[in-house]
């Protein structure tokens, strides 16, 4: 239990560090929120007045503590450009990213792990070579190419799916496939390698000698032992997916957190940028925590750090 608390406190430290760094970095990059709001032709007096209104003339430490107090009250502020409360933006954007991430992960796991197992069982046969070739090709396809190709095939030629957007229930399929295919390629290769390492171990031979079915040997014994590196990869990929996949979200007009973050950086919408970075950092921390828990479930010998 103590180790879990230690883990949580280390996560809190990470979050605080992220908040501090983001806050400081945003004050260092070129550009001024007051100028973004008032434009170039505002008078110095108007600028000074707005700066005072926003508290930007206060020392950085004061500004940061005020920011933390607001955050503690769930107040992320409002967008400089759209005047929309940021919490409202996050409420619509983040679930869209989570939805896309989960479906992509589902597709990646559903394709990647069985194909990896299949390749391992057929190691060095033609089937293994085909699977390896396909997975290498898939992992080499960038989203900005694969996305439009899938659009062309499934939307324009076959007419099965919408090209992009979020208007219909089926809109999520193409972006999820774009991300899921890439993920499945990585998982196929990782599962194959990992499984091959354990398939010749003594306990697998023992399991087979005991007369267990091949399915039980593979799924209950071999795969469980091979699962740790797979969980690591899935955790890392899930973290990236939850941070928003800017290219895929942009190509498919998917209003997720990644697109919001990049747009806010381009427009110098500082409060939105800060909020997005915080959400992304929290996602990574959460995924790391879940990954650690899954480690323990897969292998009870593993203990929480600390």
């Amino acid at each position, binding site marked *: 239990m103590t180790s879990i608390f230690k883990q949580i406190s280390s996560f809190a430290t990470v979050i605080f560090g992220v908040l501090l760094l983001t806050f400081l970095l945003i004050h260092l990059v070129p550009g001024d929120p007051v100028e973004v709001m008032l434009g170039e032709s505002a008078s*110095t007096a108007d600028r000074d007045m707005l700066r005072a209104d926003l508290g930007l003339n206060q020392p950085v430490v004061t500004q940061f503590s005020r920011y933390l107090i607001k955050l503690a009250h769930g107040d992320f502020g409002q967008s400089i450009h759209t005047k929309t409360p940021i919490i409202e933006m996050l409420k619509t954007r983040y679930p869209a990213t989570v939805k896309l991430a989960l479906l992509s992960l589902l597709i990646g796991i559903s394709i990647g792990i*069985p194909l990896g197992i*299949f390749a391992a069982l057929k190691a060095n046969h033609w089937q293994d070579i085909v699977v390896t070739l396909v997975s290498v090709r898939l992992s080499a396809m960038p989203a900005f190419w694969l996305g439009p190709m899938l659009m062309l095939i499934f939307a324009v030629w076959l007419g*099965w*799916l919408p090209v992009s957007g979020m208007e219909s229930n089926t809109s999520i399929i193409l972006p999820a496939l774009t991300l899921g295919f890439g993920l499945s390629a990585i998982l196929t290769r990782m599962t194959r390698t990992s499984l091959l390492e354990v398939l010749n171990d003594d306990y697998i031979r023992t399991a087979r000698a005991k007369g267990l079915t091949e399915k039980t040997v593979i799924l209950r014994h071999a795969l469980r032992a091979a699962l740790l590196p797979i969980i690591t990869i899935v955790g890392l990929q899930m973290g990236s997916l939850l941070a928003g996949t800017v290219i895929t979200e942009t190509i498919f007009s998917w209003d997720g957190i990644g697109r919001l973050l990049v747009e806010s950086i381009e427009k110098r919408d500082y409060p939105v940028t800060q909020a997005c970075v915080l959400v992304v950092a929290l996602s990574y921390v959460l995924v790391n925590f879940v990954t650690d828990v899954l480690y323990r479930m897969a292998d009870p010998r593993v203990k929480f750090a600390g």
Partner: protein
Amino acid sequence: MRGLTLLKPTLLAIVLVICFSVANGSATSSEPTSHGREIIFAIGQMPLNLDPRYATDAASERVNRLIYQSLVDFDQHSRPTPSLASWLVLSNREFQFTLKAKRSAFNTPTKIRSTFLNARDVKATYDSFTNLADSPHAAEFSNIQEIVVLNDDTLIFKLKKDDANFPTKLLIGILPAALVEKNHDFSHHPVGSGSIQLLDWGNKLTLQRVKDGQRISLLEVKDPTVRVLKLLHGEVDLLQGELPSELIQHLESKSEITLKNSVGANFSYLGLNMQDPILQSLKVRQAIAHAIDRETIIAKVMTRQTRLASAILPPEHYTNHKSALPAYDYNPKRARRLLLEAGVQLPLKLVYKTSTDAQRVRLATIMQAQMAEAGIDLEIRSLDWGTFFADVKQGNFQLYGLTWVGIKTPEIYRKVFGSDSFPPHGFNRGRFSDASLDQLLVVENWPAVTKRIHAQLPYIPLWYEGQFAAMRNNIIHFTPKTDGNWDDLAKITYRKVH
């Protein structure tokens, strides 16, 4: 066989995904509504703010022109013309506006009583700028001393300082006074008296035409290739501008698509830093102007009807009517000679800053190759928009490329080239200072101003990019406008094709 058994989940997932998609069918064109079929317009950037007191981006201003009405508008030669009101110049500090007798009511939500626009609404709108500390337009109206309402139809604007061009600034959409007093959120729930009203703003922005209930939705699709695919697939009905030439050519070959072109008035240029020791030399600036083959660029990679530019305001502008200036011709030999005469050691190294926009980078690359022939070694630095624009405003550049959009009044010359307009007091980002030009600006001799700027080259003029719109064949009554506005959404029609 055992491998095949293990592949079952994979096959199942693929089959499920395909079944799900086929069962749901394709989400193509929108469903008909009680007011006819919704028209979907794909745009590159969604409006940011529909409060006309805050809006600065092109998309917001284009939508606001439809939602609200302003006192003044411009004719085809960019002369100010009455829109909601005509005016009398009582002096250079007093302007009397009389609202037209026939005017619309505000398109208010059903729970709010609708009222006809009157002089008190105009006063409330412009008075509200004094209370808005964070409005980018507040500075424009800081010269207003008082607004006096004489009656429902008439009001007088009194200014602190003389400004003969004051009416040209009254382009802000008029808001209902009652809602201004209540600090209504016009940014997201606009209430105007224009031909169109906002219905809903979610993933798309849905507008409704007041006279016939026709629905028009604006859908943000950032990627140009995807915009084209959606148009071909029938998911959207219309798109305008912001496509590379190869995609336009592709659309031209499609029988189900209609393309319409018009000349444009948005001015693209190269900005020069006049505080740079090399660029202070007029001969160097002339050499750069002669080193760019604009005609070839226009022919090969620009939209149809793109025109060579020689000044910020286009030839049809009233200030240019009889004095259009010739563009600098492409002459790399002359450019090289001018550089040598300026005492520059060749190759002349220059840094050109631009955004990461693919078309901008492409144009920069072409100019880089052309300039090499003239002995100019152009280094391209493409930066994210925020960093690029911050650098431009701070004068942190040698050369940069940008476009002035929607410029109507010759006042722009003062703001861009006047010695007293260095940032933060104006847009003279290249820090150009010329006493002769300043004198001409004071007397507002616009033809002479244009000529002086053309000779001194603080900007290298490039072109006015042509406007175009691509639409499915059943869309009629939409034509692209010179400044790219969307005014035709007020009359666009979906025609049933049998």
